[in-house]
């Protein structure tokens, strides 16, 4: 995916302002920034769900091809009807179907269910599951779409630690398989620990882009998030925790 000088305006005011971003295969990008920084808008514009100025390689594809190029997990866990888990995950096969589901489609659904640890949930009603289980079902739906690129908007918000770690691990595995993954995320600790690259947005602009340790430097944190953080390189990787507010005049 390649974005060039992407700008989204609400009225006159730019919400996303001249963003350039290229996502390569195998990258797991964390899109970070305070509330209102433009993370959600950037993802939606990149997919062509919003009118925008500039270039997006995804949005310029025809609708059907776009759906085979990128899967999108919107914010929130919005499931309108009490559908079965297997049926819901099978929705991800929609872009690939010419007629009825084939054996290959069913195999992709089974694979996605297994991958999210949902094999025992096939016949359950999606709306009757807990928040963490629903999040896994929705991720499985996106996995069943089997695209080279996955864009996810706050996929781990409101989940318990086990579910959060499980989801982040799956995203990292997808990247390791050679797919591109972009996740908008508020939890800087999870982002630092799992993502291969962080892109920090503030007021619609990219203010930092690079390896987590560099992006989460003291200056960016203070300017953009108004916090100080604690970093530690551990055998498990980078550990990061925001620990205190800094004066806004910094």
């Amino acid at each position, binding site marked *: 995916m390649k974005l060039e000088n992407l700008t989204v305006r609400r009225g006159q005011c730019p919400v996303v302002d001249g963003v350039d971003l290229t996502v390569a295969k195998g990258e797991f990008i964390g899109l970070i920034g305070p509330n209102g920084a433009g993370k959600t808008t950037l993802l*939606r514009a990149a*997919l062509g*769900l919003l009118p925008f100025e500039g270039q997006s390689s995804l949005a310029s594809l025809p*609708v*059907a091809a*776009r*759906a*085979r190029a*990128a*899967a*999108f*997990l*919107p914010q*929130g866990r*919005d*499931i*309108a*009807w*009490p*559908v*079965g888990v297997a*049926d*819901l995950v099978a*929705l*991800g096969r*929609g*872009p690939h*179907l010419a007629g009825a589901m084939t054996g290959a489609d069913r195999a992709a659904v089974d694979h996605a269910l297994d991958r999210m640890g949902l094999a025992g949930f096939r016949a359950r*009603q999606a709306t009757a599951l807990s928040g963490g289980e629903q999040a896994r079902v*929705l991720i499985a*739906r996106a996995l069943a*779409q089997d695209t080279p690129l996955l864009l996810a908007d706050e996929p781990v918000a409101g989940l318990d630690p086990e579910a959060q770690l499980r989801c982040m691990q799956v995203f990292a595995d997808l990247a390791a398989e050679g797919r591109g993954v972009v996740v908008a995320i508020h939890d800087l600790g999870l982002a630092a620990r799992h993502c291969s690259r962080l892109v920090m947005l503030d007021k619609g602009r990219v203010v930092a882009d690079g390896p987590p340790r560099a992006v989460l430097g003291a200056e960016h944190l203070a300017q953009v998030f108004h916090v100080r953080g604690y970093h530690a390189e551990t055998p498990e990787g980078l550990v990061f925790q925001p620990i205190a507010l800094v004066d806004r005049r910094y």
Partner: protein
Amino acid sequence: MTRGRGITLALGGLVMGLFLASLLIGPAGLGLRDSLRALVTGQGEAVVLIMREIRLPRAVLGLLVGAVLGLSGAALQGFLRNPLAEPGLIGVSSTAALGAVLALQTGLAAAFALALPLAALAGAGVSVLLILALAGPRGGALALILAGIAISALAGAGTSLVLNLSANPFAVTEIVYWMMGSLADRSMLHVWLGAPFMLAGMALLLTLGRGLDALTLGEDAAQAMGVRLTRLRWVLILGTALAVGASVAVAGAVGFVGLVVPHVLRPLVGAMPSRLLPASALGGAAMVLAADVAVRLIAPEQDLKLGVLTALVGAPFFLHLIWRMRKVEA
């Protein structure tokens, strides 16, 4: 999968049975074998006339009107992601009714038989233009609902105005009775006029299954799964207007079918809109056919109106569903 198919088969059988019942039950008290033979072979003067000109159109219209209401209710609920949507929501029913009321009031309906259904179809057409002007090609679900409410209110006010200013008490009575919805005294002419629109509308709505399935996960997710929402909305509005407009034109306003039927069938077919659409068409047909047989059995002398019965049965049933839902949620 198989469960959905089983339900569809069962509903199909039920519809066939009720269609036969609708052909065989009536005030003329014809024998079973006589009436069927007359229908098929055309032998036996009076019996043929009753079967082909009175009962057959009534049964066919019951089947079509019911299917239209069930199907369009399910499609609108799927599109708006809301179980409270019903076929009248986008304003088609009320504008079609206003068209018919105007035909009755001006005496056109009395002057020539097809004036009423044609005026109703024209009314439905006007509502489509209004909806498209108000809710636009890019308008969201909320714009559609609000436009529908505004159009319904306007058409309702128009109907009230006609009644209010009507100098002719007979026209008023006729209008009020017509608005209750009925299949009595319809001819094959009504079938030939209404069926093409209803079938075309249903054909459009039945193509929406996969798009509505994807909408289960919201508009953004559906679009990212390759659903063209603008196109889906056009097809939905056009299909609903054709089908529901024609059904109001030939049968008047038959309430609650489009609301209750998808609601009842949803848990039985596993809630996926693509499976609910055909099931609701069959379920709607079964409900209207059953109600139309019931009005003939309950009060054969009194011309009990179909729409009165569907609301009388449908509303308490709906209350019962809400009651049960409350218990589950509590």
